[in-house]
Each structure stands twice: as C-alpha cells, then as structure tokens.
C-alpha cells in the first residue's frame, strides 16, 4: 500500500528519489575540468597531422581523461535530455519513444567513443 510516508521516503513520481538529481550534479562538476581539457586538446591540435593527433590521444593520461569525459557527459546528457522531454512532450507514446531514443543515443555515443579511444590507445 502506498501510504503518504512510503511516498515521501525518497522515491517520488519516478521512483528514483534524489538519485538522479545528485547524479546530474556529480557529472556536472566532473564535466567542468574535463570539458576544459577537451577544448585545450582540440585547440592545441588544430592543423596537426593524423599521426600527431593519434599519438596524442594514445597517451594513457589523455585516454583516461577522454573516457572519463565521455562517460560523465553521456550520463549528464541522458538525464538532461530526459528532463527536457518530460517537460515538453506530453503525448504518452511520443514521450516513451523520445525517452528510448535519448537513452539509445547516449548509449551508442558513449560506447562508440569509448571503443574508439580503446582502439587508439591500445593501438593496432
């Protein structure tokens, strides 16, 4: 039975409570230095050759930071886009379809980037 107490115990309408709120803040904080790192990485390699860019990304520290950025940003993006959809898309079918699309997009982008970095850094 859903008593008011049970409802209040940190679950709310989405049954996730403050978990999502907190996760969005944690990834936001992580994203700030990681985005600065990404911008510096790109700006310092404009005009660089393929081999130079690849060698840069293959460095362990660079690879770790890139994967960290990708995972943190993918999680942050999924929560943010989900919030936008929940606020603006009201038809139930459209909402579910859009939410699925967002989840798949975040998943595909996150996995593709991570695999690319692994392939570059483990080298072939």
């Amino acid at each position: 039975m859903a008593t008011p107490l049970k409802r209040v115990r940190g679950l709310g309408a989405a049954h996730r409570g403050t978990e999502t709120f907190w996760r969005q803040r944690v990834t936001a904080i992580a994203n700030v230095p990681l985005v600065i790192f990404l911008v510096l990485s790109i700006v310092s390699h404009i005009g660089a050759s393929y081999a130079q860019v690849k060698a840069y990304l293959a460095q362990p520290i660079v690879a770790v930071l890139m994967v960290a950025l990708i995972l943190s940003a993918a999680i942050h993006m999924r929560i943010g886009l989900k919030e936008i959809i929940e606020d603006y898309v009201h038809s139930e079918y459209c909402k579910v379809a859009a939410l699925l699309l967002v989840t798949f997009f975040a998943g595909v982008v996150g996995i593709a980037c991570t695999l690319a970095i692994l392939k570059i850094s483990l080298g072939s």
Partner: protein
Amino acid sequence: MLTMMMSIAHRITGFGNAIGFALLTWWLVAISIGPNAYATLNAFFASFIGRLLLFFFTWSLMHHMIGGIRHLIWDTGTGLDKVSIEVFAWLTIISSIVLTVLIWIAGYALMGRF
C-alpha cells in the same frame, strides 16, 4: 524575462551539446578507423558549414558550462536574490561569448604551429 530566457538557453545549449557530442564521436571514431576517414572529417570541419557548426558548439559548450556553474552555486543556497541572478545572467552571456572568441583566436593562432 531575462531569467526565463537563461533557463531556456541552458536547455537549448544542453541540446546543442548533444549534437556536439555526435561530432566528438565522429572525430574519435574517424581517428580510430584511419587516415582516410580522418581526412574526410577534416575536410568537413574545414568547410564553412563545418566551422560554423564548431563555432556554435564552442559557444554552446561555454554557455552551458558557465550556466551550469551558476546552477551549482545556486544549489548551495547562495546567489538567489534578484540582483545576483541578474548579475549571473549577464556574466554567463558575456563570458561565454568572450571565451568562445578567445578559443577561436587561440585556435587560429596555433594553427600555423604544425
């Protein structure tokens, strides 16, 4: 009015960053595939449309980052008075534009390095 616009701007730039994420994916995947894929990508980013897209992505990223820091400050319970909100809004708008221009100046300046 300004506050409402900033809230919407945070969402629009968040959406813009999702498109930028797709570009980042293309960049990394192209590098992992090989020189030919990378050359195709470079040709696109060197084009007018490519540069325009990257310029807007830079601004979107900066605006969302600074706006996000603003939100994190609000989460601590500070800066919620009317004057602070106005100041934060203008700081976000101005500093995001200034940072974007500086990044692009640095990019063009460093281009000849290689």
